[in-house]
């Protein structure tokens, strides 16, 4: 079994397909500027319903990580790094993701990272690699 793909809907399409244009797109409130993730039709900060996808820089840092070494499903390639990445745009704006293009043991909390995309089915899965310095 390969890694699952998300079911793409009107609500999540901007996030899962923005990578086609090389953009990481997060829902943002046009009233107060707050980024909302996962997508929601209303801003939890100011309760405005004026929200729309907005491209972010794709840069952030590793908040925490784990190196998964267990093949939970047949064919799962291990080890790989799962991490929570906090994006530069807003404190607490985070994604669970993978850190790629470096040895798992070299990933550390606080490490600067940048987005890259893995095409799978109709989705462009946002994963992160060490930031170019």
């Amino acid at each position, binding site marked *: *079994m390969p*890694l*699952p*793909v*998300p*079911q*793409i*809907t009107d609500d*999540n399409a901007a996030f899962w397909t923005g990578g086609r244009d090389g953009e990481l797109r997060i829902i943002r409130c046009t009233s107060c500027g707050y980024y909302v*993730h*996962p997508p929601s039709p209303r801003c939890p900060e100011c309760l405005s319903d004026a929200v729309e996808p907005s491209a972010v820089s794709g840069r952030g840092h590793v*908040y*925490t*990580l*784990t*190196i*998964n*070494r*267990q093949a*939970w*499903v*047949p064919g*799962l390639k291990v*080890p*790989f790094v*799962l*991490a*929570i990445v906090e994006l530069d745009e807003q404190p*607490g704006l*985070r*994604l*669970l*993701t*993978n850190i790629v293009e470096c040895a798992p043991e070299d990933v550390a*909390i606080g490490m600067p990272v940048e987005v890259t995309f893995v095409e*799978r*089915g109709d*989705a462009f*899965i946002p*994963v992160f690699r060490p930031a170019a310095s």
Partner: protein
Amino acid sequence: MTERFEDACIISGIGQSEVGRRITKGVMALTLDAALEAIADAGLRPADIDGVVSWPGAVSRAEGLAPASPGSSGPGPHAVIDALRLNPTWHYGGPETPGMFASVIHACMAVASGMCRHVLVYRALNEATAWRTVSERVSADAGGVTGPMQWMLPFGAFSGPTWMGLYARRHMHEFGTTREQLAAIALNARRNAMRNPKAVFRDELTMDDYLSSKMISDPLCLYDCDIAVDGVTAVVVSTRDHAPDVAGSPIHFEAVGSALGGRASWDQWEDMTQTAATSAGAHLWSRTDLKPADVDVANLYDGFTILTLFWLEGMGFCGKGESGPFVEGGQRIALDGELPLATSGGQLSAGRLHAFGHLYEACLQLRGQADDRQVEGAKVAAVSAGAGPLASCLLLRSDS
């Protein structure tokens, strides 16, 4: 302290099926074994049961935050009600709650509100059988993952150890928590399991065994993870008026805790050095005049070793970030220590009964029926359930 709904309720009976990794009985048979034992222990007959509540109910897929892996739900209330031909005035089974003890709290609410007099509460699992017989432990629809799991499964975050590995690493980073400190939880559980004939793992476990075991999702290794079993635990929550008629001895509810103090999400949880144990623990202590120092036995959730540390901090048994040193060496948390933990062997060594093993054991301890592992003079017990955004806890006492 003003009047609390907890005062209106008692645990009048407890029951538990056989528990193991290779059990031939089906999960419905185990469920009825546990239920009938609890009802009889309460001094009741099935016809006396007028409420049934279970977590998570019969669910086959997770659209919410509660796991729905094979074998993790068992029969729901409708199946049990029909099997025993019950006619309850209230019944409920659902997964979107503050963790597994939501069913116990829900039963208390039903009793205190006057809806019911005797509520059967149970947790049924047959994960050992299911995992042997189901080829795909993770099922994703061909059409793709929906709901909150879409933010985790596409990255390979398939299972509890990967989610909790993230939390454990952050706790280590901020507070210097060590693997040896996590091991103290696993080793303590095994020592207690060696005194529990129903525990599934009863061979000695050493620090060397722990440190050399297979890494599952770094920093969590094999012995940081609990053990899938088949087994069902049931309790009857009754009105306090029934106390004189209880066959065993009644257990009283001192306080419950269920507050969710963060986002309802595993991956968006703000402070991964803690879980909803922090808010549930604070909620519990806000409902009682007792203090953590009054607790004689703490059967805290241990689906992973790190979760017990989160509960120790969350329920105020030690300060924030201090749980590693608190458990180090294991003396303080041993059966003869200042705060005995996981007295049955917990989920780490006795098997994953999903917090209800801890509840059953706490009742045995308060009734003085824990045999070789009895904590002398145990009168107040804390029990807790859950991880991440799912958390609930109970403070129980033997004195009326």
